[in-house]
């Protein structure tokens, strides 16, 4: 694994570049990167929730009954995004907040990287805002070459 590829999973870099967002990062015990953040976002605002330097940024726009998801690739590699069907209606589930799950696959030359994103949302209607708690696990799908 070359230095550039290793930088993609650097907790220090993720914490530093996401510092303004209050983002935290650490190495996963089994290898890989974990980043987490929480944020109160006003209805209608587009805000960055997670930032994986060199890979992607996840922006969210909460509205009263819908949620805008903007996974933004920050790399030139081919990227595939998938959303778990079970989580599509999680944002407006009347029984309580359901998690939103996204899976991103990055075709990095050293081997595909997998980003699993999990977002919990709590809408505060009086504040016209939604509180998000998000985490992302970024791991190699196979041992890097």
């Amino acid at each position, binding site marked *: 694994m070359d230095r550039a590829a290793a930088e993609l999973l650097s907790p220090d870099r993720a914490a530093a*570049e*996401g510092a*303004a*967002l*209050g983002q935290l990062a650490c190495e996963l015990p089994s290898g890989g990167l974990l980043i987490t953040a929480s*944020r109160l*976002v*006003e209805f*209608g*605002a*587009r*805000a*960055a929730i997670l*930032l994986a330097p060199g890979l992607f*940024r996840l*922006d969210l*726009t909460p509205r009263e009954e819908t949620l805008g998801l903007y996974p*933004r690739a*920050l790399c030139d590699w081919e990227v595939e995004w998938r959303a778990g069907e079970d989580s599509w209606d999680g944002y407006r589930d009347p029984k309580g907040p359901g998690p939103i799950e996204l899976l991103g696959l990055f075709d990095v030359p050293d081997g595909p990287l997998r980003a699993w994103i999990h977002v919990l949302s709590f809408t505060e209607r009086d504040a*016209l805002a939604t509180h998000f708690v998000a985490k992302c696990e970024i791991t190699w799908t196979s041992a890097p070459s």
Partner: protein
Amino acid sequence: MFRTSFRSPEDDREALLDAILPLLPSGVHEDGDRLVTFSGAPFSRAVLDLLEDWAVDEVPADWKSRRTGEGVVIGGRVCIRSPFDPPPAEGIVDVVVERRGSAFGSGSHPTTQMCVALLLELSPDGGAADLGCGVGTLAIVAAKLGWAPVVGVDRVPVAIEVGRENVARNGVAVQLEVADLAVEPLPLAPLLLVNAPPPVQERVIASMTGEVRHVIVSGIVADEVPAVVAGYKGVGFDVAQALGTEDEWIALRLSC
């Protein structure tokens, strides 16, 4: 608190967002070809100089509670909004009103909106008086539509205080005064705007003169309509148009 807006052409927006969103935890609001962000401290001049066509407005810390809603466009011709909502499309009369405390007339209530809808059916023809004017919304709309001179009265001092600020904000000539419509003389004009409960309507009817040609009435519910209409008919007015809402608010345009 500071509201900073700047131009961001849509075809170049994602690149700009890549640069600024990691620095703005509260995110940005997209407003046509502009982006808007709110911050507790103003951006430094060095940052502003990196932005295109920027503008910074200081907004009160409680600006959210002073919003009137999302702004409303009535009849496709008049927009009533708070200073914290984006302006309407070109060609729509832009009425910017702020409320404070319990002062009425922000434009969010259906009776205010119905009164504006009925007002739009008339061609400006002289002066107008807004009786129970609240923060001056209907008086300002009338002035912007071409009625002159326009006066407004309300018994709530804070409403008149805010109303005068709204008049200045909209750049119109409207005279607002504190007056108790139950006991003090009513200002009359060819057009009366009376978004007020039945006792005020009775007072207007009792004060009617030949100078008045149209009365736009609201602030009444369905059960109160027969008595109010009978009163105005007694002084020579007929119902020319009526509007209502599902929750029984009624608005009438009476003319003679």
